[in-house]
């Protein structure tokens, strides 16, 4: 990396264009590891000692004369031996424009579980399609692979804001525009059925680097951004800025251990909206009213604070508030739900047992929950829904849960933080499910 570029990296990070978290969806054969290796390599997120370690790697996959970029992303011994990826790994790189975190998820049998995990914190997803593998009929119709559909459905369910379809291995189809156009057409049709919007498509070759970081001179017919340019241009403006306040209480601080000193701080992170001194808030679930007296960050007093900030709030009133309660905008409170309908992804090898209770963790709250109904299992390959009695590893389904105490929540599509939960097995203590709360507008679920 030249000094000039690194100076730009420094300037960019000092200015803070914002961090972008993204996930790559595709199987080993789609060239996913090669793409990540290429992004790291061309943006110089690879260090020379890592390259050297690759050349020493005991287990090599043949890839001709080129460096096997996929070796860069294999972390563990077992993976190198078997040539597979076990688990979600996180990679870091920066360009002169911004910093990136990649959630690198493997593409074999536990794919759904891993992709859901990676997608839960992602702002963007790269869906990889191997251009050399799609079936192209005589009339130009393309049949997409089932896994492409699966990745897209998960991206939709997890509400990833930005989607790019990377049509990879263009080098194997002679950089043919027709192949690209047909795939994009087929994908657009499918995306519409699923409900995905604002899809961007980019023809590229991770192996040769065409349109990954540098523009390709082999595809003059493509005028759009390279993959990295697209990633750099994405908005990370959090639309939760404009939403009503959500402040789940994490900890209650009583200075000097007793209340006589009058210090009672409510610690937490703002998950939506903003808060200012003097604001009138609602305490949920108690329904009491509160007024913001001060907002503390270490030894500073802030006039206001916004989504993403971890702060300590002091209130005018002396109220009984504890962890798991939520401070919300008085005019736009969150819903209080004793029964909730959600899409869940089952993450455990032990199937769902509707006779059992599970711990449900939502924001800073934990309650006991029971699954009262499994509405339908979603076949992520065909998008068909089927009735079932239980859920197995990697299943995605719509279910209804009953809680022992109400959740203070929003719909997942309104707010990822207050609309998501996990289920924990009370015997094994494993995390067994990830849930996204779905609400209809009638308020039918609203039983307080």
């Amino acid at each position: 990396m030249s000094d000039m570029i690194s100076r730009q990296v420094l300037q960019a990070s000092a200015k803070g264009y914002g961090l972008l978290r993204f996930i790559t969806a595709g199987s080993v054969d789609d060239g996913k590891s090669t793409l990540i290796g290429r992004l790291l390599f061309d943006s110089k997120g690879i260090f020379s000692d890592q390259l050297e370690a690759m050349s020493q790697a005991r287990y090599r996959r043949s890839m001709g004369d080129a460096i096997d970029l996929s070796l860069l992303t294999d972390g563990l011994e077992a993976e190198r031996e078997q040539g597979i990826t076990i688990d979600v790994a996180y990679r870091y790189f920066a360009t002169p424009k911004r910093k990136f975190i990649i959630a690198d998820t493997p593409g074999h049998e536990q794919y759904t579980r891993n992709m859901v995990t990676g997608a839960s914190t992602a702002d963007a997803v790269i869906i990889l399609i191997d251009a050399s593998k799609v079936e192209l009929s005589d009339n130009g119709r393309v049949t997409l692979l089932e896994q492409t559909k699966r990745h897209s459905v998960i991206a939709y369910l997890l509400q990833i804001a930005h989607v790019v379809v990377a049509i990879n291995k263009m080098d194997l189809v002679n950089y043919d525009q027709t192949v690209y156009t047909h795939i994009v057409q087929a994908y657009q049709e499918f995306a519409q059925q699923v409900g995905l919007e604002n899809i961007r498509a980019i023809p590229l070759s991770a192996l040769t680097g065409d349109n990954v970081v540098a523009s390709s001179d082999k595809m003059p017919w493509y005028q759009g951004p390279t993959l990295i340019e697209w990633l750099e241009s994405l908005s990370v403006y959090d639309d939760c800025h404009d939403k009503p306040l959500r402040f789940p209480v994490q900890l209650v601080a009583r200075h000097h251990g007793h209340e006589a000193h009058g210090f009672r701080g409510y610690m937490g992170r703002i998950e939506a909206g903003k808060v200012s001194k003097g604001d009138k808030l609602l305490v949920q679930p108690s329904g009491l009213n509160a007024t913001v007296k001060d907002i503390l960050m270490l030894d500073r007093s802030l006039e206001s604070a916004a989504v993403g900030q971890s702060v300590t709030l002091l209130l005018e009133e002396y109220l009984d508030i504890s962890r798991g309660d939520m401070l919300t905008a008085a005019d736009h409170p969150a819903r209080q739900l004793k029964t909730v309908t959600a899409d869940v992804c089952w993450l455990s090898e032990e199937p769902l047992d509707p006779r059992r209770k599970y711990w449900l963790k939502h924001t800073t709250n934990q309650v006991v929950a029971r699954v009262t109904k499994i509405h339908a299992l979603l076949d992520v390959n065909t998008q068909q829904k089927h009735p079932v009695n239980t859920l197995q590893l990697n299943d995605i389904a719509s279910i209804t849960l009953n809680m022992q105490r109400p959740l203070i929540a929003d719909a997942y599509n309104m707010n990822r933080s207050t609309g998501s939960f996990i289920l924990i097995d009370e015997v094994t203590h494993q995390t067994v499910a990830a849930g996204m709360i779905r609400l209809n507008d009638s308020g039918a679920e609203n039983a307080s």
Partner: protein
Amino acid sequence: MNAVDEKHLIDAAGNHYLDWLESEAIHIMREVAAECSNPALLFSGGKDSVVLLRIAEKAFHPGKFPFPLVHIDTGHNFAEVIEFRDRRTAELGERLIVRRVEESIKRGTVRLRNPETDSRNAAQAVTLLETITEFQFDACIGGARRDEEKARAKERIFSFRDEFGQWNPRAQRPELWDLYNTRLHPGENMRVFPISNWTELDVWQYIAREKLALPSIYFAHERQVISRNGFLVPLTDLTQIQKNEVAETRIVRFRTVGDISCTCPVASDAATVEAIIAETAISRVTERGATRMDDQTSEASMEHRKKAGYF
């Protein structure tokens, strides 16, 4: 790039990425305080644990830390680091627990071929596990980062360890959104890494922004070193000169601080945090690659140590 995107980038600029990393780390530490019954914070005096202390101050001010600081002392330390460790702890007025690998050697739980000069880095895991048992800690907060090493890239923020303190990469709990599963059975414990998502450059930029003090050996100084296998091995009582080697005085600094017998400085005249940031941005070698001889023994050194209970 169109105008809308520009506007969004500028809006986002108000929400500095360091603020985002810091807020995430504060959130994680508060989750530990709320959900774990007997946590501890691992403080070595190294730069990453110095960042952890700052995060803890921000998370719990004006209260005291809801956990003691713990140092697993290899006995092979640079004096400047131990002096710094004690000074910083005293300034904060927090409680420091020190447990020594030396004590494990005396107990017979750690055996080294050459107890005086062998690296005690891996042996730290044994002493750490003994300390966890002694104090019944259910969570140890550490400064490990995912960008450090390929086994760490696969590490969770709340990393589950079984009753033998072992990390099993094949059986990690899935970690979604920022909903951390802290449930444990008796004897099991958690390692918690609030700065998982930070890079080496992020750490230095944060140290600059927060004006954090560090042990002096992080900054350029004169030191007697021996060139060996591409490393600059510091000349100390534990690392002696071998036949056909020449000691020379070089201007160096340490990128990491650890066991003397396996930690090497890099040639550098960066004497300020700003100069180190400029060097870090153009560095072509990872932090551990430049400095840790114990990571070079095999491709999976860190993975093996972690499976054995290392943090």
